[in-house]
Protein backbone atom coordinates (compact mmCIF):
# COMPACT_ATOMS: atom_id res chain seq x y z
CA UNK A 1 0.00 0.00 0.00
CA UNK A 2 3.08 2.23 0.18
CA UNK A 3 3.00 4.86 -2.51
CA UNK A 4 4.93 7.77 -3.97
CA UNK A 5 2.69 10.47 -2.57
CA UNK A 6 4.44 13.37 -0.93
CA UNK A 7 5.25 13.14 2.77
CA UNK A 8 6.12 16.11 4.97
CA UNK A 9 6.90 16.08 8.65
CA UNK A 10 6.34 19.20 10.75
CA UNK A 11 8.58 18.86 13.77
CA UNK A 12 10.88 20.36 16.39
CA UNK A 13 14.32 18.70 16.63
CA UNK A 14 14.33 18.28 20.40
CA UNK A 15 10.79 16.90 20.76
CA UNK A 16 10.74 13.26 21.90
CA UNK A 17 7.34 12.91 20.19
CA UNK A 18 8.76 14.09 16.87
CA UNK A 19 11.75 11.75 17.28
CA UNK A 20 9.35 8.80 17.58
CA UNK A 21 7.90 9.59 14.16
CA UNK A 22 11.33 10.14 12.60
CA UNK A 23 12.54 6.77 13.92
CA UNK A 24 9.45 5.03 12.50
CA UNK A 25 9.96 6.68 9.10
CA UNK A 26 13.67 5.73 9.10
CA UNK A 27 12.83 2.18 10.23
CA UNK A 28 10.62 1.78 7.17
CA UNK A 29 13.08 3.54 4.85
CA UNK A 30 10.58 6.27 3.96
CA UNK A 31 11.77 9.51 2.40
CA UNK A 32 10.10 12.73 3.39
CA UNK A 33 10.42 16.51 3.51
CA UNK A 34 11.34 17.83 6.92
CA UNK A 35 10.15 21.19 8.19
CA UNK A 36 11.53 22.50 11.49
CA UNK A 37 8.90 24.52 13.34
CA UNK A 38 9.61 27.45 15.62
CA UNK A 39 7.23 26.65 18.45
CA UNK A 40 7.12 30.23 19.69
CA UNK A 41 6.04 31.33 16.22
CA UNK A 42 4.02 28.49 14.73
CA UNK A 43 3.67 28.41 10.97
CA UNK A 44 0.30 28.89 9.26
CA UNK A 45 0.79 25.38 7.85
CA UNK A 46 1.05 23.85 11.32
CA UNK A 47 -1.99 25.75 12.57
CA UNK A 48 -3.94 24.65 9.52
CA UNK A 49 -2.84 21.00 9.73
CA UNK A 50 -3.33 20.62 13.50
CA UNK A 51 -5.97 23.19 14.44
CA UNK A 52 -7.11 21.21 17.50
CA UNK A 53 -3.82 20.92 19.37
CA UNK A 54 -1.52 23.18 17.33
CA UNK A 55 1.37 20.85 18.16
CA UNK A 56 4.10 18.95 16.41
CA UNK A 57 4.68 16.33 15.18
CA UNK A 58 2.30 16.40 12.22
CA UNK A 59 2.75 14.01 9.32
CA UNK A 60 1.25 15.29 6.08
CA UNK A 61 0.68 12.45 3.60
CA UNK A 62 -0.71 13.39 0.22
CA UNK A 63 -1.97 16.66 1.69
CA UNK A 64 -3.78 14.98 4.62
CA UNK A 65 -2.53 15.56 8.19
CA UNK A 66 -2.02 12.85 10.82
CA UNK A 67 -1.45 14.10 14.38
CA UNK A 68 -0.37 12.61 17.74
CA UNK A 69 2.95 10.80 17.73
CA UNK A 70 1.83 7.22 18.46
CA UNK A 71 -1.19 7.62 16.13
CA UNK A 72 1.29 8.65 13.43
CA UNK A 73 3.58 5.69 14.24
CA UNK A 74 0.62 3.27 13.89
CA UNK A 75 -0.40 4.94 10.65
CA UNK A 76 3.12 4.53 9.25
CA UNK A 77 3.16 0.88 10.37
CA UNK A 78 -0.20 0.21 8.69
CA UNK A 79 0.44 2.02 5.41
CA UNK A 80 4.01 0.73 4.94
CA UNK A 81 3.08 -2.73 6.09
CA UNK A 82 5.25 -4.70 3.66
CA UNK A 83 8.35 -4.69 5.85
CA UNK A 84 9.71 -4.19 9.36
CA UNK A 85 6.44 -4.26 11.32
CA UNK A 86 6.52 -2.30 14.56
CA UNK A 87 3.41 -3.91 16.05
CA UNK A 88 3.36 -7.71 16.35
CA UNK A 89 0.77 -9.77 14.47
CA UNK A 90 -0.54 -11.61 17.54
CA UNK A 91 -3.49 -9.73 19.13
CA UNK A 92 -2.37 -10.45 22.70
CA UNK A 93 1.14 -9.15 22.03
CA UNK A 94 -0.32 -6.14 20.21
CA UNK A 95 -2.43 -5.36 23.25
CA UNK A 96 0.64 -5.59 25.47
CA UNK A 97 2.58 -3.27 23.16
CA UNK A 98 -0.28 -0.75 23.12
CA UNK A 99 -0.62 -0.94 26.91
CA UNK A 100 3.06 -0.22 27.52
CA UNK A 101 3.24 2.53 24.88
CA UNK A 102 0.25 4.11 26.66
CA UNK A 103 2.12 3.71 29.98
CA UNK A 104 5.14 5.53 28.52
CA UNK A 105 2.81 8.28 27.28
CA UNK A 106 1.06 8.69 30.63
CA UNK A 107 4.15 8.59 32.80
CA UNK A 108 7.56 9.30 31.31
CA UNK A 109 7.09 12.81 29.93
CA UNK A 110 5.21 14.26 32.89
CA UNK A 111 7.39 12.56 35.52
CA UNK A 112 10.54 13.64 33.70
CA UNK A 113 9.33 17.24 33.63
CA UNK A 114 8.58 17.11 37.34
CA UNK A 115 12.24 16.29 37.91
CA UNK A 116 13.40 19.41 36.26
CA UNK A 117 10.88 21.89 37.67
CA UNK A 118 10.73 20.76 41.31
CA UNK A 119 13.20 21.08 44.14
CA UNK A 120 13.61 19.78 47.68
CA UNK A 121 11.08 17.20 48.91
CA UNK A 122 8.94 17.48 45.80
CA UNK A 123 12.01 16.66 43.71
CA UNK A 124 12.80 13.60 45.83
CA UNK A 125 9.23 12.38 45.45
CA UNK A 126 9.31 12.99 41.69
CA UNK A 127 12.62 11.14 41.42
CA UNK A 128 11.22 8.12 43.24
CA UNK A 129 8.15 8.01 40.97
CA UNK A 130 10.27 8.44 37.87
CA UNK A 131 12.66 5.63 38.84
CA UNK A 132 9.77 3.35 39.91
CA UNK A 133 8.26 3.87 36.47
CA UNK A 134 11.51 2.85 34.78
CA UNK A 135 11.89 -0.17 37.06
CA UNK A 136 8.42 -1.29 35.92
CA UNK A 137 9.60 -0.88 32.34
CA UNK A 138 12.68 -2.99 33.15
CA UNK A 139 10.32 -5.67 34.43
CA UNK A 140 8.38 -5.60 31.16
CA UNK A 141 11.60 -5.73 29.11
CA UNK A 142 12.75 -8.79 31.05
CA UNK A 143 15.37 -10.78 29.18
CA UNK A 144 14.32 -9.57 25.74
CA UNK A 145 16.80 -7.44 23.76
CA UNK A 146 13.99 -5.04 22.86
CA UNK A 147 10.45 -4.46 24.10
CA UNK A 148 9.47 -5.64 20.61
CA UNK A 149 11.37 -8.91 21.10
CA UNK A 150 14.31 -9.60 18.79
CA UNK A 151 13.90 -6.33 16.90
CA UNK A 152 12.74 -2.77 17.59
CA UNK A 153 9.03 -2.48 18.13
CA UNK A 154 6.26 -0.10 19.03
CA UNK A 155 7.23 0.39 22.68
CA UNK A 156 10.94 0.82 21.84
CA UNK A 157 9.99 3.63 19.44
CA UNK A 158 7.75 5.19 22.10
CA UNK A 159 10.43 5.17 24.78
CA UNK A 160 13.88 5.58 23.16
CA UNK A 161 13.54 9.33 22.44
CA UNK A 162 13.55 9.89 26.20
CA UNK A 163 17.12 8.54 26.31
CA UNK A 164 17.94 12.07 25.23
CA UNK A 165 16.73 13.30 28.60
CA UNK A 166 18.74 10.93 30.81
CA UNK A 167 21.82 13.13 31.37
CA UNK A 168 19.73 16.21 32.14
CA UNK A 169 17.50 14.26 34.53
CA UNK A 170 20.49 12.66 36.27
CA UNK A 171 21.85 16.15 36.78
CA UNK A 172 18.59 17.51 38.23
CA UNK A 173 17.77 14.49 40.35
CA UNK A 174 21.29 13.71 41.45
CA UNK A 175 21.25 10.05 40.45
CA UNK A 176 22.99 7.83 37.95
CA UNK A 177 20.67 6.03 35.57
CA UNK A 178 23.01 3.09 34.93
CA UNK A 179 23.11 2.40 38.68
CA UNK A 180 19.35 2.71 39.16
CA UNK A 181 18.14 1.05 35.95
CA UNK A 182 21.06 -0.79 34.32
CA UNK A 183 18.81 -2.85 32.03
CA UNK A 184 17.19 0.27 30.60
CA UNK A 185 20.58 1.83 29.88
CA UNK A 186 21.76 -1.41 28.22
CA UNK A 187 18.54 -1.44 26.20
CA UNK A 188 19.08 2.18 25.13
CA UNK A 189 22.62 1.41 23.93
CA UNK A 190 21.26 -1.58 22.03
CA UNK A 191 18.65 0.65 20.35
CA UNK A 192 21.46 3.00 19.33
CA UNK A 193 23.06 0.11 17.39
CA UNK A 194 20.17 0.50 14.94
CA UNK A 195 20.77 3.13 12.24
CA UNK A 196 17.17 4.28 12.35
CA UNK A 197 17.76 5.32 15.98
CA UNK A 198 21.39 6.48 15.96
CA UNK A 199 20.99 8.51 12.78
CA UNK A 200 17.76 10.07 14.03
CA UNK A 201 18.45 10.95 17.66
CA UNK A 202 20.05 14.39 17.96
CA UNK A 203 23.59 14.54 19.29
CA UNK A 204 23.35 13.72 23.01
CA UNK A 205 25.65 16.52 24.11
CA UNK A 206 23.82 19.11 22.03
CA UNK A 207 20.53 17.88 23.51
CA UNK A 208 21.92 17.97 27.06
CA UNK A 209 23.11 21.57 26.61
CA UNK A 210 19.79 22.65 25.15
CA UNK A 211 17.72 20.94 27.84
CA UNK A 212 19.84 22.38 30.66
CA UNK A 213 19.19 25.86 29.22
CA UNK A 214 15.44 25.22 29.22
CA UNK A 215 15.58 23.84 32.76
CA UNK A 216 17.57 26.83 34.02
CA UNK A 217 15.05 29.16 32.45
CA UNK A 218 12.03 27.30 33.83
CA UNK A 219 13.49 27.27 37.32
CA UNK A 220 14.29 30.98 37.11
CA UNK A 221 10.73 31.70 35.98
CA UNK A 222 9.22 30.06 39.08
Amino acid at each position, binding site marked *: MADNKKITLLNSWISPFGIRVRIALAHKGIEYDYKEENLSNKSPLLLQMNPVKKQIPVLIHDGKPVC*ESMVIVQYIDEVWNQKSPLLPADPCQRAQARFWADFVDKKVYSLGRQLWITTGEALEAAKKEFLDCFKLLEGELGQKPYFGGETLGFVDVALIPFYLWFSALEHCGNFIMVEECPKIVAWAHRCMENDCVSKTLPDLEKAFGFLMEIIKKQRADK
Partner: protein
Amino acid sequence: MATTDDVKLIGAWPSPFVMRARIALNIKSVDYEFLQEQLGTKSDLLLKSNPVHKKIPVLIHGHKPVCESLVIVQYVDDVWASDQPILPSDPYDRAIARFWAAYIDDKWFPSLSGMARGPTEEAKKAAYEQVVEGLALLEDAFGKCSKGKPFFGGDRIGYLDIALGSFLGWIRVTEKMGNLKLLDEAKTPHLVKWAENFCADASVKDVMPETDKLAEFAKMLMAKAKSAPPN
Protein backbone atom coordinates in the same frame (compact mmCIF):
# COMPACT_ATOMS: atom_id res chain seq x y z
CA MET B 1 -9.48 -17.84 16.69
CA ALA B 2 -9.44 -18.16 20.49
CA THR B 3 -13.21 -17.81 20.60
CA THR B 4 -13.76 -20.83 22.82
CA ASP B 5 -11.48 -19.56 25.60
CA ASP B 6 -13.48 -18.04 28.37
CA VAL B 7 -13.85 -14.31 28.64
CA LYS B 8 -14.23 -12.34 31.85
CA LEU B 9 -14.50 -8.60 32.30
CA ILE B 10 -13.66 -6.96 35.61
CA GLY B 11 -15.60 -3.72 35.88
CA ALA B 12 -18.41 -1.72 37.39
CA TRP B 13 -21.71 -0.60 35.84
CA PRO B 14 -21.21 3.20 36.28
CA SER B 15 -17.79 3.33 34.60
CA PRO B 16 -17.73 4.71 31.04
CA PHE B 17 -14.38 2.99 30.48
CA VAL B 18 -15.87 -0.38 31.41
CA MET B 19 -18.81 0.35 29.11
CA ARG B 20 -16.43 0.69 26.17
CA ALA B 21 -15.24 -2.88 26.68
CA ARG B 22 -18.82 -4.17 27.08
CA ILE B 23 -20.02 -2.45 23.90
CA ALA B 24 -17.10 -3.93 21.94
CA LEU B 25 -17.86 -7.42 23.26
CA ASN B 26 -21.56 -6.96 22.45
CA ILE B 27 -20.80 -5.83 18.90
CA LYS B 28 -18.89 -9.09 18.41
CA SER B 29 -21.56 -11.15 20.22
CA VAL B 30 -18.98 -12.47 22.68
CA ASP B 31 -20.30 -14.11 25.84
CA TYR B 32 -18.46 -12.99 28.93
CA GLU B 33 -18.68 -13.11 32.68
CA PHE B 34 -19.03 -9.64 34.17
CA LEU B 35 -17.21 -9.47 37.50
CA GLN B 36 -18.31 -6.31 39.29
CA GLU B 37 -15.97 -4.57 41.67
CA GLN B 38 -17.40 -3.09 44.86
CA LEU B 39 -16.99 0.65 45.26
CA GLY B 40 -14.14 1.51 47.60
CA THR B 41 -12.39 -1.85 47.38
CA LYS B 42 -10.23 -3.59 44.81
CA SER B 43 -10.49 -7.35 44.47
CA ASP B 44 -7.44 -9.59 44.57
CA LEU B 45 -8.18 -10.58 40.99
CA LEU B 46 -8.10 -6.93 39.86
CA LEU B 47 -4.85 -6.22 41.70
CA LYS B 48 -3.28 -9.35 40.25
CA SER B 49 -4.55 -8.70 36.71
CA ASN B 50 -3.68 -5.01 36.57
CA PRO B 51 -0.78 -4.52 38.98
CA VAL B 52 0.46 -1.43 37.11
CA HIS B 53 -2.64 0.78 37.28
CA LYS B 54 -4.95 -1.27 39.57
CA LYS B 55 -7.95 0.00 37.59
CA ILE B 56 -11.00 -1.32 35.76
CA PRO B 57 -11.76 -2.41 33.11
CA VAL B 58 -9.63 -5.53 32.78
CA LEU B 59 -10.50 -8.12 30.17
CA ILE B 60 -9.32 -11.61 31.00
CA HIS B 61 -9.27 -13.84 27.94
CA GLY B 62 -8.18 -17.40 28.54
CA HIS B 63 -6.46 -16.25 31.78
CA LYS B 64 -4.51 -13.47 30.04
CA PRO B 65 -5.35 -9.93 31.16
CA VAL B 66 -5.73 -6.95 28.84
CA CYS B 67 -5.89 -3.50 30.44
CA GLU B 68 -6.83 0.05 29.38
CA SER B 69 -10.27 0.50 27.80
CA LEU B 70 -9.20 1.49 24.28
CA VAL B 71 -6.50 -1.21 24.24
CA ILE B 72 -9.26 -3.70 25.15
CA VAL B 73 -11.55 -2.40 22.37
CA GLN B 74 -8.76 -2.81 19.79
CA TYR B 75 -7.91 -6.26 21.18
CA VAL B 76 -11.54 -7.38 20.87
CA ASP B 77 -11.55 -6.04 17.30
CA ASP B 78 -8.32 -7.94 16.52
CA VAL B 79 -9.37 -11.27 18.07
CA TRP B 80 -12.97 -11.46 16.81
CA ALA B 81 -11.91 -10.02 13.48
CA SER B 82 -14.50 -11.52 11.20
CA ASP B 83 -17.63 -9.98 12.66
CA GLN B 84 -18.55 -6.31 12.52
CA PRO B 85 -15.22 -4.41 12.42
CA ILE B 86 -14.90 -1.69 15.04
CA LEU B 87 -11.94 0.24 13.62
CA PRO B 88 -12.30 1.59 10.08
CA SER B 89 -10.51 -0.40 7.38
CA ASP B 90 -8.69 2.58 5.82
CA PRO B 91 -5.45 3.55 7.67
CA TYR B 92 -6.17 7.28 7.38
CA ASP B 93 -9.68 6.89 8.80
CA ARG B 94 -8.17 4.77 11.59
CA ALA B 95 -5.68 7.55 12.36
CA ILE B 96 -8.51 10.10 12.55
CA ALA B 97 -10.55 7.84 14.86
CA ARG B 98 -7.51 7.26 17.09
CA PHE B 99 -6.68 10.98 17.16
CA TRP B 100 -10.15 11.93 18.39
CA ALA B 101 -10.27 9.06 20.89
CA ALA B 102 -6.93 10.29 22.32
CA TYR B 103 -8.30 13.86 22.41
CA ILE B 104 -11.39 12.66 24.27
CA ASP B 105 -9.35 10.81 26.89
CA ASP B 106 -6.46 13.28 27.28
CA LYS B 107 -8.27 16.59 27.04
CA TRP B 108 -12.04 16.39 26.95
CA PHE B 109 -12.82 13.88 29.72
CA PRO B 110 -10.57 15.65 32.29
CA SER B 111 -12.58 18.82 31.57
CA LEU B 112 -15.85 16.94 32.07
CA SER B 113 -14.54 15.67 35.43
CA GLY B 114 -13.36 19.18 36.21
CA MET B 115 -16.93 20.47 36.02
CA ALA B 116 -17.73 18.48 39.17
CA ARG B 117 -14.33 18.18 40.80
CA GLY B 118 -12.73 21.55 40.06
CA PRO B 119 -11.21 23.12 43.19
CA THR B 120 -13.00 26.47 42.74
CA GLU B 121 -16.16 27.76 41.04
CA GLU B 122 -13.91 29.51 38.52
CA ALA B 123 -12.10 26.29 37.72
CA LYS B 124 -15.44 24.50 37.28
CA LYS B 125 -16.66 27.21 34.92
CA ALA B 126 -13.45 27.04 32.89
CA ALA B 127 -13.86 23.26 32.68
CA TYR B 128 -17.44 23.70 31.45
CA GLU B 129 -16.26 26.03 28.69
CA GLN B 130 -13.63 23.51 27.64
CA VAL B 131 -16.24 20.75 27.52
CA VAL B 132 -18.51 22.86 25.31
CA GLU B 133 -15.62 23.82 23.04
CA GLY B 134 -14.63 20.16 22.77
CA LEU B 135 -18.16 19.13 21.82
CA ALA B 136 -18.16 21.78 19.09
CA LEU B 137 -14.95 20.25 17.71
CA LEU B 138 -16.49 16.78 17.91
CA GLU B 139 -19.65 18.01 16.16
CA ASP B 140 -17.42 19.16 13.31
CA ALA B 141 -15.46 15.89 13.37
CA PHE B 142 -18.74 13.97 13.21
CA GLY B 143 -19.63 15.70 9.95
CA LYS B 144 -16.30 14.65 8.43
CA CYS B 145 -16.16 11.09 9.80
CA SER B 146 -19.78 10.01 9.36
CA LYS B 147 -20.09 11.22 5.75
CA GLY B 148 -23.84 11.56 6.18
CA LYS B 149 -24.32 8.26 8.01
CA PRO B 150 -25.68 7.87 11.57
CA PHE B 151 -22.38 7.12 13.35
CA PHE B 152 -18.76 8.31 13.40
CA GLY B 153 -18.05 4.80 12.11
CA GLY B 154 -20.60 5.13 9.29
CA ASP B 155 -23.56 2.76 9.15
CA ARG B 156 -22.54 1.01 12.35
CA ILE B 157 -21.00 1.94 15.67
CA GLY B 158 -17.22 2.16 15.48
CA TYR B 159 -14.20 2.99 17.61
CA LEU B 160 -14.84 6.71 17.97
CA ASP B 161 -18.56 6.18 18.64
CA ILE B 162 -17.57 3.88 21.51
CA ALA B 163 -14.88 6.28 22.79
CA LEU B 164 -17.30 9.21 23.04
CA GLY B 165 -20.64 7.43 23.46
CA SER B 166 -19.49 5.74 26.65
CA PHE B 167 -19.61 9.17 28.31
CA LEU B 168 -23.25 9.88 27.37
CA GLY B 169 -24.57 8.68 30.73
CA TRP B 170 -22.26 11.05 32.59
CA ILE B 171 -22.96 13.87 30.12
CA ARG B 172 -26.68 13.52 30.91
CA VAL B 173 -26.03 13.40 34.66
CA THR B 174 -23.87 16.54 34.43
CA GLU B 175 -26.63 18.30 32.45
CA LYS B 176 -29.30 17.24 34.94
CA MET B 177 -27.36 18.08 38.09
CA GLY B 178 -25.95 21.34 36.74
CA ASN B 179 -29.24 22.29 35.08
CA LEU B 180 -27.43 23.06 31.86
CA LYS B 181 -27.09 21.71 28.32
CA LEU B 182 -23.93 20.15 26.92
CA LEU B 183 -25.46 18.49 23.87
CA ASP B 184 -27.64 21.16 22.34
CA GLU B 185 -30.00 21.00 19.34
CA ALA B 186 -28.84 24.47 18.31
CA LYS B 187 -25.07 24.07 18.74
CA THR B 188 -24.49 20.35 18.27
CA PRO B 189 -27.49 19.06 16.33
CA HIS B 190 -25.65 16.13 14.76
CA LEU B 191 -24.32 14.93 18.11
CA VAL B 192 -27.82 15.15 19.62
CA LYS B 193 -29.16 12.84 16.90
CA TRP B 194 -26.08 10.63 17.10
CA ALA B 195 -26.54 10.26 20.88
CA GLU B 196 -30.09 9.00 20.39
CA ASN B 197 -28.97 6.50 17.75
CA PHE B 198 -26.04 5.37 19.88
CA CYS B 199 -28.09 4.77 23.01
CA ALA B 200 -30.74 2.88 21.05
CA ASP B 201 -28.23 0.53 19.45
CA ALA B 202 -28.50 -3.13 20.42
CA SER B 203 -24.89 -3.28 21.60
CA VAL B 204 -25.35 -0.26 23.87
CA LYS B 205 -28.84 -0.16 25.31
CA ASP B 206 -28.40 -2.83 27.98
CA VAL B 207 -25.09 -1.44 29.23
CA MET B 208 -25.87 2.30 29.21
CA PRO B 209 -27.01 3.13 32.75
CA GLU B 210 -30.25 5.04 33.21
CA THR B 211 -29.59 8.70 33.93
CA ASP B 212 -31.53 8.69 37.22
CA LYS B 213 -29.69 5.66 38.55
CA LEU B 214 -26.33 7.21 37.57
CA ALA B 215 -27.32 10.54 39.13
CA GLU B 216 -28.09 8.76 42.44
CA PHE B 217 -24.68 7.10 42.21
CA ALA B 218 -23.02 10.47 41.52
CA LYS B 219 -24.72 12.05 44.54
CA MET B 220 -23.57 9.17 46.69
CA LEU B 221 -19.98 9.59 45.43
CA MET B 222 -20.06 13.32 46.14
CA ALA B 223 -21.41 12.76 49.63
CA LYS B 224 -18.68 10.22 50.27
CA ALA B 225 -16.01 12.66 49.03
CA LYS B 226 -17.33 15.42 51.31
CA SER B 227 -17.45 13.23 54.39
CA ALA B 228 -14.01 11.71 53.79
CA PRO B 229 -11.45 12.81 56.39
CA PRO B 230 -9.26 15.63 55.08
CA ASN B 231 -5.66 14.58 54.28
